[in-house]
C-alpha cells in the first residue's frame, strides 16, 4: 500500500505508527512504550493478532520498541506510518 504523504516523515522528528504483532500483548509491555491497543483480531486457527498505535519522538524510540517486541518474542506482522491517527481522540472514545 502506498502512502501519498510519506515524504513528511522525519527521521529525527515525532511520528505515529501502527504495529501489528502475532498474539496478545500484556499490559506491562505496553507500558514500556506507552502505546495503546487499537484492536485484537482473530486471524484463524485459534490465533489472534494485535494492532497497537505508538507515538514516538523519533526513529530511535521506534527502534527501541521493535527491540522490546523482539525481546518478548513477539513476531512482527507489519509496521506502518499512521500520521492521521489521533491517539488522544481514540483514548477518549
Amino acid at each position, binding site marked *: 500500500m502506498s502512502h501519498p504523504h510519506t515524504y513528511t516523515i522525519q527521521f529525527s522528528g515525532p511520528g505515529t505508527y501502527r504495529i501489528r504483532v*502475532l498474539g496478545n*500483548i500484556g499490559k506491562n509491555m505496553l507500558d514500556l512504550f506507552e502505546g495503546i491497543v487499537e484492536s485484537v483480531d482473530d486471524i484463524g486457527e*485459534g490465533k489472534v493478532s494485535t494492532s497497537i498505535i505508538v507515538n514516538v519522538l523519533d526513529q530511535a524510540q521506534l527502534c527501541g520498541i521493535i527491540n522490546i517486541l*523482539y*525481546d*518478548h*518474542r513477539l513476531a512482527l506482522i507489519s509496521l506502518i506510518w499512521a500520521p492521521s491517527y489521533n491517539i488522544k481522540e481514540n483514548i477518549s472514545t
Partner: protein
Amino acid sequence: MNRSPENFTKIQFVAKSKLYKPALRKEFVNRKALIEQLEANISAPFTLVSASTGCGKSITVSQWIEEKGHNYGWLSLDEEHNDVQVFLTYIVALFKEQWPQRTFHLESLLGGSDLPSNLISALLINDLDETHEPYVLVLDDYHVIREQKIHEIIQEILQFPPEKFHLVILTRRDPPFKMARLRAQNKLLEIRMVDLAFTADEAIKLRSKIASTITDEQIKSLIQNTEGWITGITVGLMGLKEGISFEKILASLTNSNSIISDLFDEVVYKGLPINIQKYLILTSLLDQFSLELIRTMEASIDDSDLTQPGCREFIRLSRERNFFLIPLDSTGEWYRYHHLFRSQLNYRTERYFTKEVVERLYKAASGWFEENQMFEESLIYAIRSKDLQFAVTLFNRHRIELFNHDRIQKLNQFISLFPPQAMNDCLEIVLSSAMLQNYNANFVDLAKHIDRAEELSKALDFYKPYDRKLFGELHCLKDIMSFKSGDIERTLFYAEKAMEFIPGDEHYFHRESSVAYYSMALYVKGLKDQALENLDSEFGKFASSDPYYKMRLLQGRCLIHFLEGNTDLLATDGEALKTFAASDIFPAAWMMGAYSLATSLYITNRLDKIGEFHEDVKKHRYRGWPLWIMHFYFIKCLSDMATGKWEELDREITHCEILANEFGQESIKGLVKAFQVEVFLRKGDIDSAVAISPFANFNVGSSFWGLYYIPELTQVKLLILTGKEEKGKELLQNLIHSAREYRKNNHLIQCLALKAIVYARESRYEQAKELLCEALALSKDLNHKRTFLDMGWGILPLLKEIGETQADNAHVLSLLNAFEEEKRYSLKKGPEKNITPKKSISDLSKRELEILLLVSRGANNGEIAEELFISLDTVKKHLYRAYQKLYVNNRMAAVRRAQELDLLPEE
C-alpha cells in the same frame, strides 16, 4: 589503612561474578547434537550464537565447554563494557586466570587513554598467538555492546585470528560485523534460533526432569506452538505440574508469546507464602545475588515477613521449583535470574515495597558490596538508590584511595558513572574532575572546574572536619593554578592552607601535591634549602621504613631539581624514584623517575645510555601521565638527532604522533606538532616547519615545571627565521624573565644561549658573548652541555673566543671538545640530503654573508674593508667566524660551502 605498595594490587576493579561461566545443574537437558556441532567447528575462529532470550544459548555453550574440557574464558558483558578500557581490563583478568604467571602485551594498554582499535587488536592477537594450547573466549550478552571500537577490535581479530584461538559470541541480535565475508571465508559457525529449538526427544527428557505428566502428543503440540522455545516449553511443563490444564497452557502459548507474563502468577506464585514472594522481589532488584547479600538486605528493612529462616526456605524453594535461577559458580553461592523472569518480578516490585524501601535495599546492597571490596558494584547500587549524596559519599571514600594510588584512569571511569548533573552539583566530583584535568594538562578546564568548586564550596561548613578537607582540596587545586600563572606568594598561601586543612593521615595525594608545590614555590623564592627541608619534614621521617613516603619524597625532590636544572641530583633521585615506584605499582611516579634520569643523561651529553630504558618506557606508555610520557619521547628524539640516528628519529616522531592521537587530548597533539616544528628547524627545513606550525601548540603550560623541551623556544626560533624578529625577541625576553623569576636554570641557560645566537646574527658580538658567559657560568656547576651543542655550529666562534679570554675555561674547553666529537654527526656526514641545514638559527650573520659574497667575486681583504667601510682586522674577524661556522679553514672552501648551502648564489 596500610599504604604499602603490595596492598595496592589487592584493590578489586574486576567484578569476578562477570567472569563466571553459568554452572550446570542436573535439571538441564544435555544437547548432544549441538555440542558436536560446536566441537566440529573448533578449528574455525568464530562461533556466533544469535537467538532471542530464553533459547538456552549460555547453557548450551557452557555444556560444550565443560563436556569437551576446553580452556576457556567467559565474560558476561554488560553496559560498563562499552568502555574500551573496562572491556580490556576484563579480558586481561580472564587471561590472568588462565595463565597466572604470564604478562600480556595488552596489560600495557590498561589505564591508558583513548586507543585505536587496530593497536588493541594487534596486541590481543600477539598475546593469543603466544599461547600454545587452544583457548575459547566466550563473550556472553554481546548485544549490550554499542561501542563501535569494540566491534572493530573483534572484527580485526577475526580477520587475522590467532592459531589456537576460538571466539564464541552469544547475543540476542546479530552484531554489526561484515558477516558475509566471514561466511565466505568459512570462518564462522552460526547457531541460530532454529538450531537451538528443542526437539521432541529433548522435550521428553525435560519432562522427566520436571516430573510433569504430559503425553508425547501433547509434547509435540507444545513444541509446535513454541517453535521449540526452551523457556516456553519449560513454563508449560511447570504449569502442568502446578495443575494448570493443558488447554489453558496451549491457549496462552497460541495467543501470547509472553508466556511467562501470562502464566507467571499461576506458575510461580501459586501457593507461595508471602515471605517467599517478597524474597523473590527483593532478589530481583539485584543483577547477581548470594545468600549473604540477601541477609544483609533483609536486615536493612523492618519487615517481619523477611526473617532468616525464610531466607533459607527461599533458597531451598528456588532450587526445587526452578525459578529460572542461573547459578553463577560451582559452589552454589552466586545466582542470577533469567532475564525474562527477572523483568516479570520487577514489574511487581511496587506491590510489595515502597520506593523508600527499595532505595534502602539498594543502599544495603551497596554497603555489602563495599564491605566485600567490590567497589564497582557498590557504586552502581549506590547510584541506583537515587541518593546521590550517598553515592557521592561512597565515591568519595574510594576516590581518595584511588588518588592515593595514582589510579587516574579508573577515577575518570567512575566519574562517568554519575548522572551529568552530578558534575555540576557535587563538589567532590567537581574537585576530582579538576585534578584529572590537571593531569591531562587541560588547564582551561581546570580553571573552569576550580570556579565551579569555589561556588559550591560556599555551602561548606568550615568547622566540620570533612568539609575542611574539601576546602583543603580546593586550595590544593588553587596552589597548582597559582604556580602555573606565576603567582608564587599565592602558591605559598594556598599550599599552606591546603596542608593545614588536609590531615596527613588520609588525603595523601592532595596533601603531598600541596607539599610539593609549596616546596617548589620556596625554591622559586630562592629558599632552596628550606624547600628540600620542607619535603624532608613531611616525608623524610617515614621514608626509611615506607617505600611510599620515599617515593613521594623523591618525586618532590625531582620537581625541584628540574627547576634548578641540577643534573647530578636529577640522575640520583630519578634513578631512586624509578626503583621505588616500580613501573607496575606507581606508573606515573615511575615515569617521572625515568624522565628525570633521561633528562640528566641528555643534558650532560651521556646519550648512549638513554636508549637503554626507552623500551621500558614504551611498554608503560599508557600508564603514566601523558605529558611526561611525551617529554620522555622528546628526549629520545633529541638524543637520536644528536647522534645522527635520523631513521630512528623519524620512527620516534611517528610514534609521538600516534601516541598523541591515542591520548586524544588536543593539548598533547599540539605539543607534539610544536616538537615537530623544532625538529624541522634543526634540520634546516623551514618550509616544512612553517607548514605544520598552525597545528602546533607552543604554550601547553608544561614549561612551568621546568621540563627540558621548551615549546615556546621553538616558537621564538620560528618567528626569527620567518622574518618576525622583533616579535620573536620580545617573546624570548619574556621567557628569560620568567626563567629568572622561577629560577628555572635549565630554561634560563637555553634561553640565554639562544639570545646570544640572535645577537651574533646581528653582529652584536659583545652582547652575545656577555649572555653566553652568563649561560656558561650557570651551566658550569650543573654540567649542562647539550644546550650549547644543540645550538649548532653558529655558537662555536663565540665559545672559542670566550675560551681564549677566560682564565677558568675548563667548562668551555670541555664543550669545545664535545663539539669536535659532534663533528662526526655534522652536516657533512648526514645520512640524507634533506637533513643538510640550509638555513638555521645559528646561520651566518648578515655582515659575514656580505663579506663572503665579496670574496666569491674575487675581492681581497683590503678591497672588502674599503667596500664596506670597515677595518682590515674586522674583515679578518668576520671571515674567521664564518670559517668556524662553516667548518672550513680557507676562503675558497668557505665560498664553496656557502654556495652548497644556498647561502650564496652559484657563480
